[in-house]
């Protein structure tokens, strides 16, 4: 009898978790190890999904049942490329699946972007969700107005987090350090800028609807801002998605609403507006914006074009830029510098000559770019796993030098004694849930590596 194939999945976010599940379904005989640079698994489910969307975070139970509970090992607090190399993994595994996601943000490329008080929304998200690498960040919420740049669900999430009441925040698992700052926030108004029009807004209608029904928050949209230009109107009627039509309907409803006189806070949605410059002496004081119009590109897509120079200034104390995530290269693995993904064919990672690298695969955002929602990763994982299963069936993958499960475990424990195992993570989870139940909250997160490692019983 030959030894079972052993597979390393690098990254335990939704893509990695779905890949482990799909692989176990396709090939019940493989052994899987999940590598994770944080002490905790499930990636953006824990560190990205908004704290007031607890129903979605419930997916962690399914991930656990489908992976760790079925015998996948968890190697947490181990960073591939730092603690252990790609080559090390290839010596110990039949195959390696990269599921590392997109860890940084896109920039706007405008002056003042790096002024204090201007931050990527993704950092704000990581901070309020208790990602240990972002805990030391400081967000000054003493200004009256914040500006959020972008029209996607991350923009909607941060806007909600800036406008929820102290009592609502307390019912979430927002990190304690953020809870304190958010509860003291002086922000009265959040302006959300979309460079395109209402028909092109990337919000899901569910997120947009939610913005319109926050308790004590007045959602303002000007009627003229939701009037569609002829190109967008035609696109919406002929090719618009169900979501785009719902979004426009919702925005028209919002525009027709009377003002809420007793609102605690306001959200102002602006469309066809782009930031030109972020200004301030030592920190953000204002943002200059300009108007856009919608034009048709040669490929038929609709895009924004500047109508004039900056013609409006919005005073603000905080700018959150939410224009997309971006992946970073991994040491020892090919990287497509233009698309910011691992070059791949249906999940098989390709070398510079275009040939598949035997035994190297990609799944999730590092494979397709930062698009889609949680469940998108399930189909994506199915595709990658199908290639891997095919390669295994063909016998195309050589047996690694150290085929057993013990060698890598020994190597990791030597190089990273404070490794967090599945048991360690379960101890963290139990500790956080216990603290949550004492505080009548869904969970109280441990938000520093030290606390997490201590709770895991990991030797530091």
């Amino acid at each position: 009898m030959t030894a079972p194939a052993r597979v390393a999945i690098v990254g335990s976010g939704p893509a990695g978790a779905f890949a482990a599940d799909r692989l176990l379904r396709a090939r019940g005989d493989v052994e899987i190890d999940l590598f994770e640079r944080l002490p905790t698994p499930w990636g953006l489910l824990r560190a990205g999904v908004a704290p007031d969307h607890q129903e979605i975070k419930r997916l962690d139970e399914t991930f656990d049942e489908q992976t760790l509970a079925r015998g996948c090992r968890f190697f947490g607090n181990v960073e591939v490329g730092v603690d252990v190399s790609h080559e090390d993994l290839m010596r110990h595994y039949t195959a390696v699946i990269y599921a590392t996601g997109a860890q940084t943000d896109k920039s706007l490329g405008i002056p003042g972007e790096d002024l204090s008080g201007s931050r990527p929304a993704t950092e704000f998200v990581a901070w309020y969700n208790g990602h240990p690498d972002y805990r030391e960040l400081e967000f000054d919420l003493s200004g009256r107005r914040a500006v959020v740049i972008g029209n996607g669900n991350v923009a909607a999430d941060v806007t909600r987090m800036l406008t929820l009441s102290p009592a609502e925040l307390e019912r979430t698992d927002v990190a304690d350090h953020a809870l304190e700052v958010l509860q003291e926030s002086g922000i009265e108004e959040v302006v959300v800028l979309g460079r395109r029009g209402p028909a092109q807004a990337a919000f899901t209608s569910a997120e947009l609807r939610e913005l319109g029904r926050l308790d004590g928050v007045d959602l303002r949209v000007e009627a003229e801002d939701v009037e569609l230009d002829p190109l967008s109107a035609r696109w919406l009627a002929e090719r618009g998605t169900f979501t785009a039509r719902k979004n426009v309907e919702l925005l028209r409803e919002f525009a027709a609403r009377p003002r809420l006189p007793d609102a605690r806070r306001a959200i102002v949605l602006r469309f066809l507006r782009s930031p030109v410059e972020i200004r301030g002496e030592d920190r953000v004081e204002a943002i200059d914006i300009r108007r856009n119009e919608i034009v048709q590109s040669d490929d038929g897509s609709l895009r924004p074009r500047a109508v004039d120079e900056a013609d409006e200034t919005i005073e603000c104390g905080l700018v959150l830029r939410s224009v997309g995530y971006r992946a970073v290269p991994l040491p020892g693995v090919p990287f497509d510098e233009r698309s910011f993904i691992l070059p791949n064919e249906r999940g098989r990672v390709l070398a510079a000559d275009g040939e598949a690298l035997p035994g190297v695969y990609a799944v999730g955002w590092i494979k397709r770019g930062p698009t889609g929602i949680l469940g998108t990763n399930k189909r994506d994982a199915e595709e990658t796993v199908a290639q891997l299963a095919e390669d295994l069936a063909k016998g195309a993958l050589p047996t690694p030098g150290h085929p057993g499960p013990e060698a890598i475990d020994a190597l990791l424990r030597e190089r990273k004694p404070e490794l967090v195992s599945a048991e360690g993570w379960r101890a963290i989870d139990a500790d956080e849930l216990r603290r949550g139940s004492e505080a009548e909250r869904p969970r109280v997160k441990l938000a520093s590596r030290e606390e997490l490692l201590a709770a895991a019983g990991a030797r530091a």
Partner: protein
Amino acid sequence: MTYVIAGSCIKDDSCIEVCPVDCIHPKPGAADFETAEQLYIDPELCIDCDACVEACPVDAIFADFETPEKFAYALELNAEFFAERSTAERTAA
């Protein structure tokens, strides 16, 4: 009655796999699957069997009379999705 899917749907297709009457759309591979923000249940065809509720990993599916207030819009939204294009049309394609 019917079951309805709320906006907390993550488009995990577990419900589609277990639905005995194929009334949950769009299905993977359908033209509007990738752009859909969630899945929808056709209220005309749903037989109230509960299988999807059990399968959903994020508890996004509710019986119409038990839908929480914050998801009250979902009943109309699910119906509307099929008013635009019925399951019959979707299945024939």
